[in-house]
């Protein structure tokens, strides 16, 4: 495992792990039973991706439960609290569109049979791209319904898209070990997201797409305040009983 692929697997794995945990928080609280199942499904897909990716780096449980906040490499977008249903959907739309475009590119990369880790990443992307295409479709369907629904749902969806906009720029900072044209990826992402928002009768959010203080942000281990609390909850049991098998 080369250092650069380590970096790549950790970045993608942490994205999937953290968002999966956030979606898990919806269990028992979703607006309707069917949506409960859909969110859980997406969370499970992401957790599966996280397990494969973190296993490329080391022991998945150690990596998930024994790292401090500063050692996590996920983007700040995925660690944002669920908020109302519109916030969860906006976060999912932004992230799943990114994941679909990125995994599509990774899956289509040239085979390099002499490089085992790179091949593992390619294999994962080929499998996961089907999952994330569904996630994106799910988020898109809800964006259309909320944006073009009642005046209240429109306002909430708009507020959610605006609030999370400042975290979307970070996803396109180049990640070491991922051989991707990041500018092109970002352009495709903007096209895809603005098409959905237009159809949903929502304006494209204005303002910067990175926070003023974010620097390297999540990919460098700099996280937002809610993330610490999320980790405390996620890691509590494992840390209370170190070495236990589950």
């Amino acid at each position, binding site marked *: 495992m080369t250092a650069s692929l380590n970096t790549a697997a950790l970045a993608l794995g942490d994205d999937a792990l953290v968002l999966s945990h956030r979606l898990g928080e919806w269990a028992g609280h979703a607006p309707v*039973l069917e949506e409960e199942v859909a969110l859980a499904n997406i969370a499970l897909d992401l957790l599966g991706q996280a397990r494969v990716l973190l296993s490329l780096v080391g022991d998945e449980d150690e990596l998930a439960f024994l790292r401090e906040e500063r050692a996590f490499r996920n983007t700040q977008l995925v660690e944002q609290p669920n908020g109302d249903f519109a916030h969860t959907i906006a976060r999912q739309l932004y992230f799943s569109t990114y994941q679909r475009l990125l995994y599509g590119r990774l899956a289509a990369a040239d085979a390099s049979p002499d490089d085992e880790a790179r091949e593992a990443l390619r294999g994962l992307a080929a499998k996961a791209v089907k999952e994330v295409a569904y996630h994106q479709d799910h988020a898109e369907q809800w964006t259309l319904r909320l944006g073009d629904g009642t005046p209240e749902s429109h306002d909430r969806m708009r507020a959610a898209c605006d609030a999370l906009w400042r975290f979307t720029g970070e996803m396109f900072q180049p990640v070491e070990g991922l051989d991707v044209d990041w500018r092109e990826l970002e352009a495709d992402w903007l096209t895809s997201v603005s098409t959905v928002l237009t159809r949903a009768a929502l304006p494209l959010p204005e303002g910067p797409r990175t926070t003023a203080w974010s620097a390297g942000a999540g990919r460098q281990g700099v996280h937002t305040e809610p993330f610490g609390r999320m980790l405390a909850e996620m890691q509590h049991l494992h840390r209370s009983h170190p070495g236990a098998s589950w």
Partner: protein
Amino acid sequence: MTTSDWPLWEVFVRSRRGLSHTHAGSLHAPDAEMALRNARDLYTRRSEGVSIWVVPATAITASSPDEKDPFFEPSADKPYRHPTFYEIPEGVQHL
């Protein structure tokens, strides 16, 4: 949530090697598109290559249990209505 916003849908699924759609169950969804997606999550676990039909429950007309006897019985005691008195040729499938 009112039932008018989230009407009931009946779900029919044809499995990958199945010949016909079979009633799998029902669910609530705001519209047909969401009903399809919910049906996929609830009833197919995303096995590849299956076909799903969703139908609003209000679009289905059912036979009435009260009229069961006049509705179905007359055909039961007339053997000539059941074309079973011949051998099925070899090679005929799905009969």
